[in-house]
């Protein structure tokens, strides 16, 4: 199969690049490893500083991607290998079996209701709740098709019997697809910092210490519990603390970089919490508030005026009380520099972003270089921000460094622009 561009990753960076290229008339293959496109943004509640509902603005983008005549979307698929082939590349893609016939599935979720297996984690709700072994990733998923998590499936056949469209197909096998493309865009995004790596914060040990992605799920309109509950006893939280820079600006965990978005998403969540739980107190423990983008400073100011507390001091450790409340120990730097211990009933760790260096391994013969922090290296950040060490391979979004949504969109535009210029110049040279 021939395409002009292979886009690896179906988050907003990948989708935006694909749409730009599709609009310009190029045939694009977008490969996403999850069962739905949309990336992390579709899972968010609202976005700063406009407080737009994240899915309201990203679902149209997802639909545009999925239905664009020039874009082919492959979900639940992984690019295994990219090799230079003439002036372009040859790519091998592994299409993982969903065990569901995609064209037959109507997204009715009857299988999900019939499935007897309760899996404890739901990756799209950041494990706040469980899911079934056959499931539709999330309500706005595109394609809205069920997928069977075969590792947890007991092969009981209940879904098969429940499916009115006979879409369940256990005979599916992994399929390897080979394509030729002229250019590649890497848009593999970021990983969340695993908060367990800061044992002093007790994530995974103390029930009422959650990460910010979980909080975003609790605040989303599609939230699992329909309100902001603390996990230990299901009580509505009254006094919520945010620990900023969890896993960022921290050499002890090997990440000296600022994650660029945590200040703002924490501020956004604080505003949303005040809306959801008008009586709750929200305190942010920060080092520097990095409200640097357009409209961000004003949003920060507004949040302070709404009564959210900002305390300068990095939280050093968290201890749990018997009632599940948590004691935060920090130095209140701006008020006498005293060591303080403050009690909160829910703690949100504003976790940072980590790179996805695994992507380098799929490039054979030529090396996709990484920078000092294991992000994809920009070989000419000043003039060609999307260019990588491999000619014809471009990078978009958080694959090359932490970014907020607007910056991600800009970087995706830069990648599609440079890919277009690359394809046009090589075409002329031929």
């Amino acid at each position, binding site marked *: 199969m021939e395409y002009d561009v292979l886009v690896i990753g179906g988050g907003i960076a990948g989708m935006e690049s694909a749409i730009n290229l599709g609009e310009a008339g190029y045939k694009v293959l977008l490969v996403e490893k999850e069962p739905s496109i949309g990336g992390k943004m579709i899972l968010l509640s609202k976005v700063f500083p406009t407080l737009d*509902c994240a899915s*309201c603005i990203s*679902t149209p983008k997802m639909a545009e991607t999925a239905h664009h005549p020039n874009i082919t979307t492959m979900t639940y698929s992984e690019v295994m290998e990219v090799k230079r082939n003439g002036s372009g590349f040859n790519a091998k893609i592994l299409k993982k079996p969903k065990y569901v016939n995609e064209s037959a599935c109507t997204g009715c979720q009857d299988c999900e209701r019939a499935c007897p297996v309760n899996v404890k984690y739901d990756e799209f709700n950041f494990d706040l709740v469980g899911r079934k072994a056959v499931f539709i990733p999330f309500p*706005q998923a595109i394609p809205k098709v069920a997928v069977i998590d075969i590792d947890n499936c007991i092969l009981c056949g209940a879904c098969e019997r429940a499916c009115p469209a006979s879409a369940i197909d256990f005979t599916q096998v992994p399929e390897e697809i080979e394509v030729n493309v002229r250019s590649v865009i890497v848009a593999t995004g970021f990983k969340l910092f695993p908060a367990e790596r800061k044992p002093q914060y007790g994530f995974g040990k103390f029930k009422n210490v959650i990460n910010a992605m979980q909080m975003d799920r609790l605040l989303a*309109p599609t939230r699992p519990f329909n309100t902001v509950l603390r996990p230990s006893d299901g009580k509505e939280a009254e006094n919520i603390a945010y620990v900023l820079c969890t896993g960022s600006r921290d050499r002890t965990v090997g990440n000296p970089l600022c994650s660029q978005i945590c200040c703002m998403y924490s501020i956004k969540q604080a505003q949303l919490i005040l809306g959801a739980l008008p009586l709750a107190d929200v305190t942010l423990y920060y080092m520097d508030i990095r409200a640097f983008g357009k409209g961000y400073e004003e949003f920060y100011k507004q949040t302070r005026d709404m009564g959210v507390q900002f305390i300068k001091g990095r939280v050093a450790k968290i201890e749990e009380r018997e009632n599940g409340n948590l004691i935060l120990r920090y130095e209140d730097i701006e008020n006498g520099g005293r060591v303080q211990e403050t009690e909160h009933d829910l703690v949100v760790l504003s976790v940072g972003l980590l790179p996805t260096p695994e992507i380098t391994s799929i490039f054979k013969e030529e090396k996709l270089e990484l920078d000092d922090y294991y992000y994809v290296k920009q070989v000419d950040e000043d003039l060609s921000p999307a260019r990588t060490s491999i000619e014809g391979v471009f990078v978009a979004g958080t694959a090359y460094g932490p970014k907020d949504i607007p910056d991600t969109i800009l970087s995706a535009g830069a990648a599609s622009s440079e890919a277009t210029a690359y394809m046009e110049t090589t075409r002329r040279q031929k």
Partner: protein
Amino acid sequence: MTVGNKENEEFAPSILVFSTDSISDPGIDLAGSSHLAYPSTVSVISLPCSSGIKPKWILHAIEKGFDGVFIAADGTDCPFLPDCTTRTAKIADTAQSLLKEKGYDPQRVKMGAICSVCAEPFANHMRNFFNALQKIGPAKKGGGKDGI
């Protein structure tokens, strides 16, 4: 649905919802796919944007027999107009004064921002509006007075 038997004790008000293709429609869809129940007397007409609703359509709907009209507004998520909320609110206002002129209770028009995942809020809006309309009573088809 009991459009024909409005005088019955168990009056089930009929509600027309104006929704929008890209924002509130998905929210209403999600209410259904989440199996959130609301009265079956609710029907939806979709438009591109809630700022494009004509007050006279609302009047027409009430005069022809709907007991209430709900505007599922785009709010700040509107992809077209940054001042969509203000515009939609103005339309609702105008519709209310039109209704008043014709002798209908202006409460028969209601507006709420429904985002693309606002399934629960939508179902709640519908149930509450349904109850409120039950109290107001049936709209007199063809221009009867609501008694206000």
